C-alpha cells in the first residue's frame, strides 16, 4: 500500500450463474454421479441462463474525484459496489482498492439485535474496520450525531427503524477512509437527519479521497460528482461529465424506445414528449403529449388510450390510468394528438411514462408506445415515496403566526 489511494476497475467482468448451483449435498451427489458417467455436462440451456452482470468495465478514480454511477435497474450498479467493496470477486479483470475502504452501504448490517446501542457501536465499528481506540475517541461524536444518546444502553431490538439507521449511519460517517464508496444511503431517518446526513456525505465526498457514488437521485449526482458513468446492461453506455451522463440517461433512450415500441396494425405512436420539459419539481404538474397516426379498420370498442408511469429505481409501476371510464375516444382515423396532465406527487427520482392502448375486455395492452423519461426534482426535502404537499403554520399564543408556509416559501 504505497502512494496515493486509488479506486479502479480494469476490464472487470462478472458472471452470475443461474440454475446450476446445488445448495445441498443431496442434489450435488447425483449431479456428480451424472457428470462422472458423462451424462451430466452443463446443457446449452443451462449455459444460456448465465448472465454477465458486468461486461468489460474500466474506470479510475483518483483523489479529489467523485465518480457517479447511474443507470436503470439491473444495469450492474449494485454489483459494481459489491466488487468495489470486495464483497464479491470479479470473474475476470482487476479491482483495485488501495487504501482503507469506507463504505456507506447498509450501514447497520452488523448490528446484533440483543446488544445495546453502545455495544453495537463497537461491533459495527470493528466490522467496518475501525480500531477500538478510534471508536472510543469518536464515541461521543457518533452518539451526538445519531441522536440516540438516551437509549445507548437499550438493546437495539427496541429501537425504531429510524433510530437503527441513524446510529448505523453515524458510525459509518465517522470512518476516516482513504477511499469512499457510497450507495443511496441518503434516504436515512427523518428529513432533518437526512439533511444532516447529506451535509456529512458532501463533506466526506469532497474531502479529497477518491469517491464512487451510486444514486438514483440525479440532481445529487449532478451536485456532488466530478464525473459520471452511465451503465446499461452491465456495460458502459456513456462516460463524461455528470450533466452529460444524466442527460444521456434521461433523454438518450427515447429514440431507442420508440424503435422498440410495439404497435398493432393501423396504429403508430410517432412522438411522445413533454412540451414544458421532462424535469419537474416533486408535487408539480407535468404534461405529456402523444402524437401519432391511426388507420383502423377493426378497432374493438373495448380499446382505449392508456398511460403508465414507472419508478425507474424499483421498476415498479406506480400509476396507470386508462381512458375507459372517462370515455376518452380512441383515435381511429388520421393524425391524432392527445395530452395527459399528471401531478407528480412522488419522491424525487427518475420515472418513465409510456402511452399504450389498453383492451379493457381482454385486460391487456394491445400496443405500447415509446418511453418518455421523467425527472422529478427535490424542492423541499421529505422522506417517503409520496408527495403530500405539506404546509406548515405555527401560531404562538399572544404573538400570532410566527411561521406561515406561504411566507416561508417566498423567502426560501
Amino acid at each position, binding site marked *: 500500500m504505497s502512494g496515493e489511494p486509488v479506486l479502479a476497475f480494469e476490464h472487470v467482468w462478472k458472471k452470475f450463474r443461474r440454475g446450476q448451483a446445488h445448495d445441498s449435498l443431496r442434489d450435488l451427489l447425483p449431479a456428480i454421479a451424472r457428470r462422472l458417467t458423462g451424462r451430466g455436462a452443463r446443457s446449452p440451456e443451462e449455459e444460456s441462463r448465465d448472465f454477465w452482470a458486468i461486461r468489460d468495465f474500466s474506470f479510475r478514480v483518483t483523489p479529489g474525484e467523485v465518480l457517479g454511477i447511474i443507470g436503470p435497474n439491473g444495469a450492474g450498479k449494485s454489483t459494481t459496489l459489491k466488487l468495489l467493496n470486495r*464483497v464479491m470477486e470479479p470473474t475476470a479483470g482487476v479491482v483495485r482498492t488501495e487504501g482503507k475502504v469506507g463504505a456507506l452501504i447498509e450501514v447497520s448490517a452488523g448490528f446484533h439485535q440483543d*446488544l445495546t446501542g453502545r455495544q453495537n457501536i463497537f461491533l459495527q465499528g470493528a466490522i467496518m*474496520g475501525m*480500531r*477500538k481506540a478510534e471508536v472510543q475517541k469518536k464515541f461521543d461524536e457518533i452518539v451526538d450525531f445519531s441522536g440516540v444518546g438516551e437509549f445507548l444502553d437499550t438493546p437495539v431490538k427496541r429501537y425504531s427503524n429510524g433510530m437503527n439507521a441513524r446510529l448505523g449511519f453515524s458510525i459509518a460517517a465517522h470512518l476516516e477512509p482513504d477511499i469512499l464508496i457510497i450507495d443511496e444511503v441518503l434516504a436515512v431517518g427523518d428529513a432533518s437527519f437526512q439533511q444532516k446526513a447529506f451535509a456529512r456525505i458532501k463533506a466526506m465526498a469532497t474531502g479529497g479521497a477518491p469517491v464512487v457514488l451510486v444514486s438514483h437521485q440525479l440532481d445529487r449526482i449532478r451536485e456532488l460528482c466530478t464525473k459520471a458513468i452511465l451503465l446499461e446492461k452491465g456495460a458502459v453506455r456513456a462516460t463524461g461529465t455528470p450533466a452529460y451522463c444524466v442527460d444521456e440517461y434521461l433523454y438518450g433512450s427515447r429514440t431507442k424506445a420508440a424503435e422498440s415500441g410495439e404497435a398493432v396494425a393501423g396504429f403508430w405512436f410517432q412522438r411522445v414528449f413533454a412540451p414544458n420539459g421532462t424535469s419537474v419539481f416533486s408535487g408539480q404538474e407535468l404534461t405529456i403529449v402523444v402524437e401519432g397516426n391511426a388507420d383502423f379498420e377493426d378497432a374493438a370498442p373495448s380499446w382505449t388510450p392508456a398511460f403508465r408511469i414507472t419508478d425507474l429505481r424499483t421498476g415498479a409501476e406506480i400509476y396507470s390510468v386508462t381512458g375507459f371510464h372517462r370515455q376518452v375516444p380512441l383515435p381511429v382515423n388520421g393524425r391524432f394528438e392527445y395530452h395527459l396532465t399528471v401531478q407528480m406527487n412522488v419522491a424525487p427520482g427518475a420515472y418513465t411514462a409510456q402511452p399504450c392502448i389498453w383492451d379493457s375486455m381482454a385486460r391487456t395492452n394491445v400496443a405500447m408506445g415509446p418511453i418518455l423519461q421523467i425527472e422529478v426534482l427535490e424542492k423541499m426535502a421529505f422522506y417517503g415515496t409520496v408527495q403530500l404537499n405539506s404546509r406548515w403554520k405555527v401560531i404562538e399564543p399572544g404573538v400570532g403566526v410566527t411561521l406561515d408556509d406561504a411566507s416561508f416559501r417566498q423567502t426560501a
Partner: protein
Amino acid sequence: MSAAEPAPPASWVRPRHSIVVILRELWESRELLWQFVQRDLTVRYAQAVMGFAWALFMPVMIVGAGLVFRVVLVTLSGSQLDGADVGGLAVKSLPWAFFSGGLSIATQSVIANANLLGKIYFPREALPIATVIAQCTDLGIGLLLLLAIVPFLGLHVTVNALFAAVVLLLLVVFTAGCALLLSCANLFYRDVKYIVQVILSFGVFATPVFFEPQMLGPKGARIMLALPLSPFIQGLDIAVVRGHSLFDTVTLASRRGDVVVWSPWMFAYMVASAALVFGMGLLVFRRQSGRFAEMA
C-alpha cells in the same frame, strides 16, 4: 445471449492467498475477532446464571452418560468401577464437549451472518474462529470445575499434567480448522449441518471418551487411535489421569494381549493433524470466500 457477445479474456488466473497473508490479515483484524467473541459471549451469557449452567451442562451430561455406559459394561463383565475411571471420564468429557459443542455452533456461524456477507467486507475467517474462541470460555469453566473436584477423584496428578495445556491448545487449533472447513461447506450445501450432527452424536463412541482403547484389544485400539480427534482425548487421559509424559510409550495389558495406548508418534500425529487441518481450513475457506456473497 447472442453469439456476437464479447467475451472476457479466457486465461484469467484468480489471485491466490498464502497462509502467511491470511494469518497476517487475521492478526490485523484481531479487534474484530474480539468483537465477535464478545458478541457471542454477551448474547449467550445474557442471563449469567443460565450461561454458566449451560457451560457445565454439556460436560456433566457427557460424564453422566459415560458413567451409565461404564456401569453397564462393568456389571456385564463382573468387575468394579473405581475413582480413576470416574476421573478419566470427567477429564475426557471436557475436550469432547468443547469439540462437539464448538463445531455444531461454528458450522452455522457463516450462514448465521449471511446478512453481513453481501454487504460489508471483513476477513470472513473471523466468524468461525470467533465461535471457537468463544467456546473456549466453556472449556475454561469446565476446567475450573475439574480442578475443584480433582482431590475427590483419587487421581495421582504428576507434573506431566502440564502437557494438558499443549494438548488443549492443539485441540483449539484443530477445532478451528474443522470449523473453517465445515462452516464454509455448510454455506454451499445446507445439509452439511445435519451430517455434522449425526457424526458428532456417534463420534463419542468412536473416540476414546466412553471406551478406553485397551477395551477394544490391540487391533481395535489402533483403529480408534487412528481417528484424528482421538489423540487429543487420549493425550489428556495419559498425561492427567495416568500421569505419563506424552513422549513416552504407554502399554497396557488387556485380555487380548498388550495394547499400546500412547506413543510419541501419536504426539507427532496430533501436532500434524492440528496444523494440517487448520492450514487447509484457512486456504479452502479463503479460496471459497469470494463466492460467499453470491451464496448467502
